[in-house]
């Protein structure tokens, strides 16, 4: 496409200006301040959009106010004409030749893939671009310049690369101080520094472990010193104490208590004496009782004697025995029975004789038969007893009793037989019975007397006195018994008393008084003496025990201190106490010093341990380590993002370079033709280093193949070469399917000498044969050079605006 008309509606000072270029080369020239640059900017703004005002400068602000706006008529390669009208801040309006809107597509097709950047870099250039040719040795500039010209479709790489670089630079720039990377690095450095400090402290912990070992060793050393000093002091003290203990033993030995000389009565003796003394009242009492018993016995004996006398019994005659008494009683009873029977029979006989017939009362047979039988039985028993025990009285009594009993039984038989009623016969019989009874009574009385005789009594005692006599016998017997008992008790008591006396005599030895009170006095005195002796002995024993205790203690002290070490004892004995005291002071001072050192060492050890334990429990190091790791992670995150951006940048660059590489030969080939033309064959081509090889130099190749680095070329030659390259780029871009766009040049021939200027003008004229070229200049010599190169060019003269 080419530009057919340019109209500034409102743009800087050129509002209302219309310029109508022609195909081929159009030279738009005029003095300074004639609006050449504004016209160029207007074309760019209408086709691609007005940039922000600050990007163009205040000079582009419409003088009459309002928004910047303009119209550009373009003619596409197929000959169609469109008008592009754009107002800043509004959408672009595309209309056809009839003024009908045709939409953006027409413009897009006309511009192809060209961006404003491409337009700026390829289609638009000025003398400054030529002057910067030396920068082609900068790989990025070189690649950018080349690549931006030949992008095959879509957007150019440069804006992308710029955006990527901008974002990357916003994160990290070498020497940058305000980017996130710098902040993160600072934070990481600070965190690491803090961690290092903490690790130094941790190292201090490890050193503390060493310090702990050292502190433990110090404690051990101090302990050894303390032990040594203490032992020395203790040894000295021990010697001193041993010396004192030995002295104490000697002193105690000298104070051993002497025995009193008095023999301590034996316990047995004292006990015997005390037993005797305790028994003496018993003996006295026994003797008193014995005397009383003896008196009692004498009294009873007297009473018995008088009783004997009263019944006529000799004082020495034995008392009849109980059996004798029984015999007497039986005899007396027999007498009384016989007499009663005789009396009864007499009465019967008399009655029978005088009062015939006298009724005979039946004799009560049973009791008499019982009596007779009983008497016989008793008598037989008496005989038997007397026989066996040799008691004559009993035998006699028994005989009498048998006879009496038989008499009673015989009488009873006769009486029974006399019951037959024969009154006369009966009276006779009663007389006979009476006589018989009388005989029996006599016999009974004889037996009574015999019984008295057997009993030692006089025959003058009557039967009726028997009870009194027998009572007397009882009294005598009781008196005899009492006398006997008293005598026996008296004998027993005397024996008791005598035994005690004998025991006392045995205890006291010969000379012991028999008299009990004396004996008691003697024993009391002896016991008193015993007590005194025992007290003395006890005191001696106590004294001795106390002494022994002291001795043992003293010896124990010696033993304890010496432990049977003879050398130690000898050393103690040889000890100079004065020197020892001085030495003690020295050693005590050493102990105090050692103890202080030990205390300090233990405290230091405790402190070190506490430090280590505290450090072991402390999470500070871990916290700082995590902080450092976090800060590094933050730093890494920034670097990561930067790397991603730079990776994108690199790959896009690679894509661009690859594209450039593919197209560069064409560009150089085209450029070489132009160079050869422009230099009249002095130079035939250019070479550029591959890729981004830093330090590589761009070179121009002479006809003879010699290569000359750009840096060694004149500024004009470099500018000429650059112009040729740019022309080649434009051709290459178009040849590669790029859009056909007008080329806008602003005073590009400024720095060229006339020869180079002519050559450059020829290049421009040649370029204009294939592309529309709008050349803006205020230099007449440039216009002339272009006229010389292209006599058919179009000239448009601009007037100064102010």
């Amino acid at each position, binding site marked *: 496409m080419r530009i057919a008309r340019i109209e500034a509606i409102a743009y800087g000072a050129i509002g209302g200006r219309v310029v109508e270029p022609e195909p081929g080369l159009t030279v738009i020239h005029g003095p300074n301040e004639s609006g050449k640059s504004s016209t160029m900017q207007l074309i760019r703004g209408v086709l*691609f959009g007005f940039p922000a005002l600050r990007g163009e400068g205040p000079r582009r602000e419409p003088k009459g106010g309002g928004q910047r706006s303009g119209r550009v008529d373009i003619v596409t390669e197929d000959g169609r004409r469109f008008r592009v009208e754009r107002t800043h801040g509004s959408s672009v309006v595309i209309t056809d030749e009839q003024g009908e809107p045709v939409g953006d597509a027409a413009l897009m097709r006309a511009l192809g*893939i060209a*961006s*404003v950047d491409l337009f700026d870099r390829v289609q638009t250039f000025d003398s400054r671009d030529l002057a910067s040719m030396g920068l082609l040795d900068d790989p990025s500039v070189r690649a950018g310049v080349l690549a931006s010209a030949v*992008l*095959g*479709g*879509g*957007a*150019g*790489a440069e*804006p*992308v690369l710029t*955006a*990527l670089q901008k*974002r990357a630079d916003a994160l*990290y720039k*070498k020497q940058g101080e305000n980017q996130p990377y710098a902040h993160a*690095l600072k934070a990481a450095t600070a965190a*690491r520094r803090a961690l290092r400090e903490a690790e130094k402290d*941790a190292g201090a*912990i490890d050193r503390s472990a060493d310090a702990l070992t050292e502190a433990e060793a110090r404690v051990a050393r101090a302990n050894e010193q303390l032990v040594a000093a203490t032992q020395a002091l203790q040894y000295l003290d021990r010697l001193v104490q041993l010396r004192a203990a030995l002295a104490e033993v000697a002193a105690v030995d000298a104070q051993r208590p002497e025995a009193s000389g008095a023999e301590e009565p034996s316990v047995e003796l004292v006990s015997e004496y005390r037993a005797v003394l305790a028994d003496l009242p018993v003996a006295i009492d026994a003797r008193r009782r014995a005397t009383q018993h003896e008196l009692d016995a004498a009294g009873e004996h007297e009473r018995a004697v008088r009783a004997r006398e009263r019944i006529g019994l000799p004082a020495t005659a034995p008392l009849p025995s109980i059996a004798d008494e029984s015999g007497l009683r039986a005899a007396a009873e027999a007498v009384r029975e016989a007499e009663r029977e005789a009396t009864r029979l007499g009465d019967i006989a008399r009655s029978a004789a005088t009062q015939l017939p006298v009724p005979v009362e039946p004799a009560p047979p049973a009791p008499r038969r019982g009596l007779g039988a009983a008497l016989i039985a008793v008598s037989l028993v008496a005989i038997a007893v007397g026989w066996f025990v040799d008691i004559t009285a009993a035998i006699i009594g028994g005989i009498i009793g048998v006879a009496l009993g038989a008499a009673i039984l015989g009488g009873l038989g006769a009486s029974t037989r006399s019951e037959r009623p024969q009154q006369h016969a009966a009276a006779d019989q009663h007389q006979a019975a009476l006589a018989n009874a009388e005989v029996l009574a006599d016999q009974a009385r004889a037996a009574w007397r015999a019984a008295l005789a057997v009993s030692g009594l006089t025959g003058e005692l009557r039967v009726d006195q028997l009870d009194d006599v027998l009572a007397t016998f009882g009294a005598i017997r009781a008196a005899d018994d009492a006398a006997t008992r008293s005598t026996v008790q008296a004998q027993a008591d005397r024996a008791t008393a005598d035994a005690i006396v004998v025991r006392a005599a045995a205890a006291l030895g010969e000379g012991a008084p028999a008299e009990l009170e004396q004996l008691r006095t003697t024993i009391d005195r002896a016991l008193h003496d015993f007590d005194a002796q025992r007290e003395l002995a006890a005191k001696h024993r106590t004294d001795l025990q106390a002494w022994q205790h002291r001795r043992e203690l003293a010896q124990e002290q010696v033993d304890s201190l010496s432990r049977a070490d003879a050398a130690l004892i000898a050393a103690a004995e040889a000890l100079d106490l004065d020197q020892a005291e001085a030495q003690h002071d020295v050693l005590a001072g050493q102990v105090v010093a050692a103890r202080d050192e030990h205390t300090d060492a233990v405290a230091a050890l405790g402190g070190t341990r506490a430090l*280590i334990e505290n*450090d*072991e*429990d*402390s*999470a500070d*190091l*871990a*916290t700082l*380590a*995590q902080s*450092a*790791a*976090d*800060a*590094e*992670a*933050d*730093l*890494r*995150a920034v*670097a*990561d993002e*930067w*790397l*991603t*951006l*730079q*990776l*994108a940048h*690199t*790959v*896009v660059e*690679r*894509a*661009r370079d690859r*594209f450039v590489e593919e197209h560069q030969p064409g560009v150089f080939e085209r450029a070489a033709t132009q160079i050869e033309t422009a230099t009249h064959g002095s130079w035939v081509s250019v070479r550029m280093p591959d890729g981004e090889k830093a330090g590589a130099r761009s070179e121009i190749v002479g006809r003879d193949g010699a290569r000359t680095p750009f840096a060694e070329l004149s500024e004009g030659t470099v500018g000429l070469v650059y112009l040729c390259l740019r022309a080649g780029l434009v051709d290459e871009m178009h040849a590669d*399917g790029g859009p056909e766009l007008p080329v806008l040049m602003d005073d590009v021939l400024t720095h060229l000498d006339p020869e180079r200027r002519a050559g450059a003008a020829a290049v421009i004229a040649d370029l204009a044969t294939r592309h529309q070229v709008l050349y803006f200049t205020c230099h007449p010599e440039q216009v002339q050079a272009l006229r010389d190169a292209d006599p058919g060019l179009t000239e448009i003269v601009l007037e100064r605006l102010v």
Partner: protein
Amino acid sequence: MPRRFIHAADLHLDSPFVGIGTLREGFAETMRDASLEAWDALIDCCLEEEAEFLVLSGDLFDRADGTPRGRSRVRRGIERLQERGIRVFAVHGNHDPLSGRSPLAGLEGVHVFRKDVPTSETLDLPGGPVTVHGVSFGKREVSENLALKFARGDAPGLHVGVLHCSLGEREGHGTYAPCTVADLVAARMDYWALGHIHAYSEEHAEPPVIYAGTLQGRSPKPGERGPHGAVVVEFEGDRVLEHRRVELDRVRFEAVEVSIEGLDDEADLERALRSAAAGVVAQADGRVVLLRATLTGRGPLYELLVRDEYLTGLRSALDDQEADDLVWERITSTAGPAVDLDELRQSNAFAAEVLGAFDTLAADPTELQHVLDGLAKSFTDTALAGLPTEDLAGRLAAARELALGLMLEQDGAA
């Protein structure tokens, strides 16, 4: 009842997490203590499982002498094991080589295998003898194949090999004590307790050759993501019956990808991100999840994503609204503008050239690495040494989308 031992490795106790950047307030302490709490959980596990011994396959600490806090915590843990008579067998790895005195030296109930030459220790346990073989790194870089030096010997019972080594090259891990599975199998161990690779890996079934993986994930890198913990090994006599993983980590790194395709606005985007996050949080069993989201796909939201600081702001906005169990660690994007790349490749546009350049580089990872290495030379800070090491393809895709986006933007301007 089978007998048990526990296999753990690469604990890196009390070392900082790397590559997570500054998190929102309140998580510093959780992160700081996570490795130590995982250690405590390991001790608890030993006690609960009534393990007879614990095997540590190297890199107990991040550096040879560990840290005071780490050493203290280890000491207390081992004392707890000692109370129950649980022995500990440890080797030193490339991070904590046995160059001097081992931080474990002198601890009751701990056997530290010496460096360079494998040795063995036989335990006469009530259930029968167990022999543990191991060797420590004496220096950080060990290039020798230590596996070849192991020999089972004639002792009866179970034989366990403990080794810090590289089975082939692994991304993100240096190659140390390189060996092959065949080398290990040839040593006739009944179980190989390996360390060095931070992701759990069963390299061989019979005998089991197991990388326990690190006890606690250490960074958002792929190998550190997901559950981490130890291995419980059940055995009888000289036979391993079963081995199973136990999750002991306290903080979990996760990653999600969210496509922007079909998303119309920011609200859609936030919903999509939250929905993706909910899934991983639910699987973390109450642990704190540090989530990295990558936006993928193509769509109109792309223009939003490439705005300066947008992703950072989005992360902060999401993070501010989250509960205590989720932290948005980072949001990155490989999403692109809404264009058909294939169609673009076929076009005559310069963008096709650019796409071609990206495609060429993507097909040549070595060249891509070379390019990134060249770029990274701009940075001299030690923290950025070896910077472009991970997800190079993702980075290239992100760069591509950036370039394409800018080119299309330029087109729009044109």
